[in-house]
């Protein structure tokens, strides 16, 4: 098992440190800084390295929490759900088919208005068994009220985990939030990460306070009694209103983050790379940004004006902002590291959502192509990205292209 290489110094309380850590380890460090109370672990690759790191932090006395090894993902998520209802700040996570085994608690947690932060180390769903990244695991909860954010670097993983606690536990929200890290590419890749001091984090992250929703003998309430056609619709409406508020809360928390930690993320919902004067853009989530950015740089050197938009927040889906950002391009190529079998035009999840947003909010509607790529952890290469950009340029030039195509598939 990997051992921690974090510097153990008193100065950590007040000063920012720098350490060479993986994406999973960065999340563990964030949980320590957030003073998480209850953590539940269950093994499945690749997310579980976060739990290995965290168990070491607990064993070394660096982190004070109940570290519970559960008997299944279903129990894992049920345990933290109940802990959160009783006032504890909680952390949990899973990958691939393990996440699906927790589908029942994943369903009821947002319905109950219970905040938690979970790491999804994105992994292909069985069968066949495969360790590599695909996004269908986290995307499976997209209609249930979870907030879903994709990160790209270990630094962004750490920062987003801190942001996640503040967003999820905000009184206007009180819903669970999953941070997606591409399996292996991010969960297991080391990078230099700036680790904020616990003083800074204290300033940024208030106490989790459930108020009148706390389950405690001093606050005698009945949570989730049986309701039917008499009240369920009104209860659903309350959950719906959370999603109406979500974008504003996220903007506010990112602004707060910048003012305390000094790191800027610009638009919280997506990152724009060399899009200012671009004719076409590619759009995708997660670590495929690296080969795509390299390809964009190459294209630019050859005078081809391409850009890249990396979507961070998938739920909430900032439809209007995304559409406004994309309407000025001549064509958009979406990279879907997922499948949505039988969906309109047999496209993936992200392309379908982007098209839906463009239909309503875009002044002009450029063609939105979909590329199904990088499934099962297959690498999306620079050459793949160049090819997708070229196809998108063709569409921009008025040559009709198939709406959905597979990239990187064996012939």
């Amino acid at each position, binding site marked *: 098992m990997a051992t921690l290489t974090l510097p153990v110094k008193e100065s950590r309380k007040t000063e920012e440190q720098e350490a060479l850590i993986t994406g999973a380890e960065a999340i563990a460090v964030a949980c320590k800084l957030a*003073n998480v*109370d*209850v953590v539940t672990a269950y093994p499945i690759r690749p997310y579980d390295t976060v739990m290995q790191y965290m168990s070491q932090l607990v064993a070394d006395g660096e982190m*004070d*929490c*109940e570290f*519970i090894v*559960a*008997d*299944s993902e*279903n*129990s894992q998520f*049920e*345990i*933290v*759900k*109940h*802990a*959160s*209802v*009783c*006032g*504890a700040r*909680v952390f949990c996570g899973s990958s691939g088919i393990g996440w699906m085994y927790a589908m*029942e*608690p994943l369903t*009821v947690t947002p319905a109950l208005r219970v905040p938690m932060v979970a790491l999804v180390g994105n992994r292909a769903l069985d069968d066949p068994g495969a360790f590599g990244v695909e996004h269908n695991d986290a995307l499976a909860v997209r209609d249930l009220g979870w907030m879903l954010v994709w990160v790209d670097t270990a630094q962004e993983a750490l920062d987003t985990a801190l942001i996640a606690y503040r967003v999820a536990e905000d009184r206007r929200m009180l819903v669970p939030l999953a941070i997606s890290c591409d399996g292996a590419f991010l969960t297991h890749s080391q990078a230099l990460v700036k680790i904020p001091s616990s003083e800074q984090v204290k300033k940024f992250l208030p*106490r989790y306070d459930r108020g009148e929703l706390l*389950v*405690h*003998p001093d*606050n*005698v*309430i*009945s*949570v*989730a*009694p*049986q*309701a039917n056609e*008499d*009240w369920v619709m009104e209860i659903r409406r309350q959950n719906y209103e959370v999603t109406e508020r979500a974008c504003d809360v996220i903007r506010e928390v990112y602004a707060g983050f910048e003012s305390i930690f000094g790191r800027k993320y610009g638009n919280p919902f997506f990152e724009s790379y060399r899009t200012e004067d671009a004719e076409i853009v590619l759009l995708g989530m997660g670590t495929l940004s690296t080969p795509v950015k390299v390809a964009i740089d190459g294209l630019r050197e050859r005078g081809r004006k391409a850009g890249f938009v990396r979507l961070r927040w998938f739920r909430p889906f900032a439809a209007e902002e995304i559409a406004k950002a994309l309407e000025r391009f001549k064509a958009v190529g979406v990279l879907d590291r997922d499948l949505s079998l039988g969906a309109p035009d047999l496209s993936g999840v992200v392309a379908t959502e982007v098209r839906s947003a463009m239909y309503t909010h875009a002044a002009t509607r450029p063609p939105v192509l979909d590329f199904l790529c990088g499934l099962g952890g297959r690498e999306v290469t620079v050459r793949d990205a160049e090819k997708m950009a070229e196809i998108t340029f063709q569409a921009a030039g008025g040559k009709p292209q198939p709406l959905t195509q597979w990239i990187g598939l064996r012939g």
Partner: protein
Amino acid sequence: MAISPFVEIDATQKLDPFKGVKKIPLEEYFTSGHRTCQGCESALVMKMMVKAAGPRTIVLGSTGCMYVANTTYYSTSWVVPWMHTQLGSSGSAGLGAAAALKAQMRKGKMKKEPINVIAFCGDGGGADMGLGAISASLTHPDYNFLILLYDNESYANTDIQLSGSTPYGAHTTFSPPGKMKRIMHHRWKKNTAGMLAAGHPECKYVSTICMSYGLLGMNCIRKALAIGGPTFVHSLDPCPKGWDYDPYISHELGELAVTTGIWPLYEVENHTLRLLGKTREIADKRYVRQPVRDYLMKQGRFAHFTKDDIDYFQSKVDEMWQKWLIPGVIPMMKDLEGDAPPAE
């Protein structure tokens, strides 16, 4: 019993046994507002359970009759904090709530005091779907909580379907007697409490109860909450709807389940087994087991039984009392004479 020095456990409430019916407090923590059936013994279990536990208690209830019929939006009957939990999650619910209290009290985020945590489930939630989570939770010695299984021997809320806890031969909506098969359900009832007692070396308290013997049942619950660590109580609850009998004989049927020897009452306290009440009298030969016919024939769910079926049922109960290593608890048989260990 040796406890690992690495186990950190908080103090529990001091809950001495009630010394007689007249000493039971008048305060109710499960009151009006529910809509359980007339003669529902499980509702009585809920009432006695929280009466035994007192006001500084959190109750977590799995899906089942005691959710759907018991806790309706805008008319809850609970006077202690209560929360719905999923069908198979009573073990995780108890563990999660107890862990949250412990962590927050240790870290100064919550006032330190012993709070009872009870997670209940029906036989569908406990003996079937949630058994794995209950088993896992009973291996965590660091947390104080009780899992209470109220066993009305079917999925009674969803229309009386058989569960792993339904007795042999019973007519349920998934096991109707038919023209070809008189007995559709030919599995013997799962020995849940015995299995949990035998399989969890650090669980300090397991008991079986029946609220026809209310004082005994309440005192078992108090002991389970006070002893510390994760504990399990299994209650047998006659169900007028599922068992098909006139509600006024609910208590009588509970007594018959015990006096016929079908439902032995016992507790395993700190690994010491003690048979309780009438069960103990049967074992000590101070009371003669009643024939199972007296119990079976009062219930519509066994109305299709022939004499052969009753005889078979009786023979299985006799076998339990005469051959099990410990009647009602350990279903392995003594076979000393025939003992032939494999050659080395």
